[in-house]
């Protein structure tokens, strides 16, 4: 049970769920949550490789960095979403398609 494959499996599931959420959710906040899931799947990968691979402490440090980065990202992204809401009165990402040609 305590093997690399299991951890990676969890991580892949988490990644797939996150990706699914990012691609399919219409709600901006839900999209953000998907991104968080993806980041956490990466964290699991780092820690798994620190434990079973050869990354050792570097994996831990990377994981910490990713958590910090995720926090920063959540702050910035939420701010963006608030701005979107202020401008468009919705946080439905399908309605925010100004990039369209």
């Amino acid at each position, binding site marked *: 049970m305590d093997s690399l494959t299991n951890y990676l499996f969890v991580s892949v599931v988490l990644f797939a769920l996150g990706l699914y959420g990012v691609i399919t959710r219409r709600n901006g906040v839900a999209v953000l949550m998907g991104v968080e899931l993806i980041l956490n799947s990466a964290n699991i990968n780092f820690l798994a490789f620190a434990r079973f691979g050869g990354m050792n402490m570097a994996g831990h440090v990377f994981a910490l960095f990713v958590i910090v980065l995720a926090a920063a990202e959540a702050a910035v992204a939420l701010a963006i979403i608030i701005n979107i809401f202020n401008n468009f009165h919705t946080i439905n*990402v*399908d309605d925010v398609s100004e*990039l369209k040609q």
Partner: protein
Amino acid sequence: MITGNIITDFSLLILFLPLVAFTVNIFFGKRLPRQGDWVSIGAILITLILSLSMLLNMFMNWDPDFSHEAKFIWMDLGAFKIELGFWVDNITIVMLVVVSLISSMTHIFSLEYMKGDIRYSRYYAYLGLFTFSMNGIVLANNLISLYIFWELVGVSSYLLIAHWFEKPSAAAAGKKAFLTNRVGDIGFFIGIMLMFTAIGSFNIQEVFTGVSQGLIGGSLLTLAGVGLFMGAVGKSSQFPLHIWLPDAMEGPTPVSALMHAATMVAAGVYLTVRLFPLFSPDALLVIAYVGGFTALFAASIAITQNDIKKVLAYSTVSQLGYMILAVGVGNYIAAFFHLLTHAMFKACLFYGSGSVIHAMHHSLHELDDHDTDPQDMRNMGGFKSKMPITYLTMTIATLAISGVPFFSGFLSKDAILAGSLGFAQHYPQHFLLPVFGFGAAAITAFYMFRLIFMTFHGEAKMPKVFKGIHESPRVMTFPLMLLSGLSIFIFYTLPYLNPLSDHGWFTELIRAGDSVVPGNPTAHEIGEGVHHAHYTAMALSLLVAGLGIGLSYLMYLKKKLSAEVWANKMGLLYKLSYNKYYFDENYDRFLYQPLLKLSRAVAYVDWDLYDKYFINGFGRVTKWLSFLTGRIDYDGLDQSIVDGIGRATQGFGKQLKQVQTGRLQNYMLFALVGVIIILVIQTI
């Protein structure tokens, strides 16, 4: 002692000062005080002083073989080089003095004669241009620059003859002079080119060397010589191109004196004198016959003319014929001598006629009479008492031209007649040459005294006009006095005082050069013949001159013989002479009209056939072809290929832009699909 370099500097100044005057006057003349005449007069007087100092230097050095050449390369095209430069020898110096002296006199004379003219400053400018080009001819050391200045002289002659171009006759006379000269110049150019082709140089002295080495000979040399002589025929108004000079009298009288009596028309003689060594015996014969015939022929026209300037014009043609005759018989120093003396007395005669015409003009102007011809001698008579200075000076010049001893004309005419007589003694088959010469001498004496008697003696034919006649002011009589003074023998016979002498500084300083054509008689042989014939010629010339003067005296002064009766007796001959042998009419009928017809025919072929059908046809075909290619280009190529590419790109873009939904999640999905594809490819 003046050295070579100074001679070059002087020559440059003499050449270019009149050009400076021309440039100043043509551009600024009207804005200058006195319309700029002082610029021209100043320039020409400096020129005169410079050339006189060169003459003085010539006397002090007393070197008959003096010769100085200065040149530079003007064009260097490898094998083909053209040099420009000066060739100054004693002949050049004397000629420079003649040109600048007569030109100065003309400038001074014109001060009064041209006063109030509408194109006063332009007139002075053109005089400068003429003096420049004439000095260019005199100084030239090669045939090309000679030819350039030759043409420039033609241009200035044209401009000055047609000075009063409002008068259609003056404009036509200018054109006639220019075109007639062109005929001769074509021959001149052919001659130059023949020489250049054979010898490879334009430099006159190199040409002489080439001829003496036999690089050109036989009939080609004769042809080249006759070609070069053609230039002289045109410029010196010899038969059959004599027709322009009498018409050139339409120009202002001082111009007639300067160009059509003393200098420009003498350029032809000067040319033959300069180039004498290279004429072959046959070419010289042509020259002698043309000159002799012209002398007699023009004199015979002068008898019956009533226009005072026309008489002088034909007299000039006749005297130039004399000079040409002298060149032809090899006595070319006599020709140059006559050129010198003739320049003085003929310019004097022209100024005299100008003075008379000026007086007539004023008198007629006061009477408000614009129909009477101020130049017709039949309206004159008895002017002796009213215009004593003009009368006296003109009489001196007339005595000179008639060949009366103690005057310059006697010396030079005698030398020419002796030359032709000596030639005929050597070659009896050419007995006609002295006959021409002596005949012309008799006729010359006759018509010149006829002019004097009709103008100055007898009773006034128009008393009203006569009353208003006054002597001309000092500016006009000064040149008359100076030039009639220079018609006295002493200026030409020094250091000898014998008025009958055939020696003097002239014959000693201006030494005849030998002909460079192999087989031609040397200068010494010709001189022997001349010397041998000297006294016979002198006696004969005195006899014919006396005959002419006597006949004129009886006919026009004493009225013992009636001119009318004689004219009737002569009938046909009189009519021929009076109408100038119908030369203009015949040229018109047999030359101009056929030429015009030919030109019209050519023009018809060119315009109505060639242009209309060929050129225009070409145009039409091109237009049609352009239309066709235009259609292919616009409707075919542009519409399908060029526009097609555009349309295809546009459509493609339209399709492709659908991908840009603006939905982030779509992009994300595309990225995911992309990654998956890459992964799949990698694993495979």
